[in-house]
């Protein structure tokens, strides 16, 4: 299964970035083969709608699951129909993408059932 992990860096050992839409990058890793690649997040510099853009990016990468620290309502609404499963990783301890992968494989990550917080946009901006 291909999972995308939000990271700040470009390696499997890079630190986990708990932001989704504004993550620096995503590490795409195959949980069976361990094969991985790093991808800069094109939404990092978006003026708005970063969650929507990052979600489309993840879907295009072919990820079936994503691990981040939180999902906004628009990211949630975009990832859901894309059938990308959303997992939450603990944000209170320093973890690397490799640590996250291990937690994922061990089944220790919870799925996000709903958006984690209200959007950053209150109506039009």
């Amino acid at each position, binding site marked *: 299964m291909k999972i995308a992990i939000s990271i700040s860096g470009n390696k499997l050992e890079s630190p986990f970035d708990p932001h989704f839409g504004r993550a620096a990058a995503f590490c795409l890793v195959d949980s069976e083969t361990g094969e991985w690649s790093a991808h800069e997040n094109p939404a990092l510099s978006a003026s*708005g*709608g970063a969650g929507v853009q990052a*979600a*489309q990016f993840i879907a295009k990468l072919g990820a079936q699951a994503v691990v981040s620290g939180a999902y906004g309502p628009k990211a949630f*609404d*975009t990832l859901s129909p894309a059938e990308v499963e959303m997992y939450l990783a603990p944000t209170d301890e320093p973890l690397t993408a490799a640590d996250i992968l291990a937690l994922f494989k061990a089944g220790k990550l919870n799925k996000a059932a709903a958006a984690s917080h209200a*959007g950053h946009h*209150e*109506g*039009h901006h």
Partner: protein
Amino acid sequence: MRIVVASGKGGTGKTTVATSLALSAGNSVRFMDCDVEAPNAALFLQPILDTRKEVGIQLPVVDESLCTHCGKCAEVCEFHAIAVIGKKVLIFPELCHGCGSCTLICPEKAISERLDVMGVLESGLTATGMDFAQGVMNVGEPMAVPIIRELKKWNPMSFPYGDDVRGAIATKQSYADGRLLPEGRNDMIEIRDSPPGASCPVVETMRGADFILLVTEPTPFGLHDLKQVVGITRELEIPIGVVVNRDGIGDNAVEAYCAEAGIPILLRIPMERRFAEAIASGKTLVEAAPEYRPVFHSLLQDISARVGA
């Protein structure tokens, strides 16, 4: 000739200057209150607002039966307001700026548009026959620019020229560059009362203007915000002049800045209690102090000479 009265800092006297300038201009004045978040010029000019129009932005509506999910709309959208996921198109109205790019680019013509009402335009004549128009944004709407844009190109019923001119300005070509009046009809004066601040609504109000009058007060706040709007006018390459309101308070920093930056100070209005009392009771400056009528008339002639109109 289109004159914008702006300030940067709120409460410096934009509306005081704009209304008195309009009342001293004689005939053929069109007054436009572009401060759509809190329009207040009508309180002073008292127009009969008998014409109304709802305005807003055009939101995309996708016809699922025509859509091939090619994703071109999502690619072109700078605001990520439309996303294509597999066989689904998602639209996020709160991100949409109504630019219409998705509608234009759709190869299947599957996107139509619907008006998302964000406010109203209102217009009417004042007692002196001035053509007055204002935009009023709905409470809770944070995006003022679309309303100002619509206001600038609106053609209210009270427009004092005949149908030939009305027809001419109603065509898209004539206002595409922000120009409101057709060639040869620059004898009419349009005065736009700008919102405060130095962000997009102010830029939109200034766009297409011939001259910008910056009202400031001789205080550090006044100066700070004056510099901000001067920056915008330089970017837009529109000539400017300064009105120092509440002259006599504060310090000389505004004067020093204007001298150094080569910005003419066209008028000084002293700090006087009778002005404040008159304005607090809904009177304009020229009504409270008729001796300012010729002063504002000269200001207008000065501006006219600077514009070369």
